[in-house]
């Protein structure tokens, strides 16, 4: 039976993990490879590295990170952040990443999705969507630039468009819920999951196992992504998975 995936997200800046400093048992908690190894051992199904480097020089360091992770780990991982053109995709995928995620760049120039998908196959292209509820729209509006700029897109319309253009997966972040630890945005997740035929990763709001359970059942998500609850050891992936198993969710 296909299992639901649990995906920790690591924010990487100039080659260093910027959250997750509470791993006292690690020699170097700022090393992305060390943290990746730790999560792999804990049972993470995939990893997402989000490059938040501000400079081009900083962004070059992600390629080294990708090479080192690919050399050591046998689980799939995605790289996002700073992917603006086909060349950027080639750089990280050739370094050993399995997927790239695109967000703002895809909204500014949707052809980028098709270019990546035609070149590497749809399974390599994740479209990340940041969405926030909008009273005027009576639905969720898609934002770019890390949630700073609103677009004209309603979330399910953009998700459908992204898939039509070759997205193999949708990484959906609720801006309303992000950082709240009060649970995923179930209505949003369900709306997008039902709108597209490709897998949807729910993100934003994870606080405990029940939240993941709700996202997988009511929200119809295929995977759940979280950062802080894993980084700050509020729950381990192992504990989370055994609780989900008790609740009847198929996990690895």
């Amino acid at each position, binding site marked *: 039976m296909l*299992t639901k*995936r649990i995906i920790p997200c690591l924010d990487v800046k100039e080659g260093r993990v910027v959250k997750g400093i509470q791993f006292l048992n690690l020699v170097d908690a700022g090393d992305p490879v060390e943290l990746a190894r730790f999560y792999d051992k804990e049972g993470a199904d995939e990893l997402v590295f989000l490059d938040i480097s501000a400079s081009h020089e900083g962004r070059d360091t992600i390629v080294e990170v990708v090479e080192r992770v*690919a050399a050591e780990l046998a689980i*799939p991982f995605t790289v996002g952040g700073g992917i603006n053109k086909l060349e950027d995709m080639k750089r990280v995928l050739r370094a050993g990443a399995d997927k790239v995620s695109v967000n703002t760049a895809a909204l500014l120039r949707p052809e980028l999705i098709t270019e990546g998908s035609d070149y590497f196959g749809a399974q390599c292209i994740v479209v990340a969507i940041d969405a926030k509820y909008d009273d005027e729209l009576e639905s969720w509006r898609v934002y770019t630039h890390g949630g700073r700029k609103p677009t004209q897109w309603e979330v399910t319309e953009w998700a459908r468009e992204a898939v039509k253009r070759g997205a*193999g997966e949708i990484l959906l972040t609720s801006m309303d819920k992000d950082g709240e630890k009060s649970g995923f945005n179930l209505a949003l997740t369900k709306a997008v999951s039902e709108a597209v035929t490709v897998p949807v990763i729910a993100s934003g709001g994870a606080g405990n196992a029940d939240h993941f359970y709700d996202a997988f059942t009511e929200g119809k998500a295929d995977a759940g992504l979280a950062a802080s609850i894993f980084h700050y050891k509020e729950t381990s992936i192992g504990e989370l998975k055994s609780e989900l198993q008790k609740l009847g969710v198929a996990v690895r």
Partner: protein
Amino acid sequence: MIGIIDYGMGNLHSVCSALKRIEQPYILSGKPEELHETDGLLLPGVGSFKDAMTELEGTGLADFIKKETENGKPLMGICLGMQLLFERSTENGLTEGLGLLPGKVDRFRGVTGEGKSYKVPHMGWNNLHFLQKEQPLLIGLDEGYVYFVHSFVVQTDNREVLAAAAHYEDVEVPAVVGRNHIMGTQFHPEKSSETGMGILKNFCQLVEEGKQR
């Protein structure tokens, strides 16, 4: 020495990394004369069946693979590489495959016999059910979880080529296939943690043993 067949289809780096990790010597090449010198062939690949066959035929690699396997060289296909071992696929129009194993490749229907729709691709970790434990790729392994990403699936009436399957909705997905020295996995062993690495090790071992014979 393993030869990883490079025919321009997708991301071969993770397969290379995996062989490095298990300290298996390999070359990555698209040249038949170089690949001929190896003891076993790995055919990876992501992308479309039709594009892949066009590349393999255009470069002479299709004939090369057929000839090498006729002479008994072990061959393992991964993901699309496994699908290419079969007779034909309906992806982007009917395309002839390498025809080394009996069966055809079709898209997941996306809806069960009872009318329930499901996601395509079949993406994520699914557990294996062994149908033939004695298959060389499965020796010493348990029915663990492995990582799949695919929208097309092999269909065959010859159950003797099915070594392991995974279940996705109402589809029995051929996951490990093989006959004699020709075999393949629908999932990505290079991304499938211990079980995947075990399968790659088994293939490398079989290649090394074949060399000694």
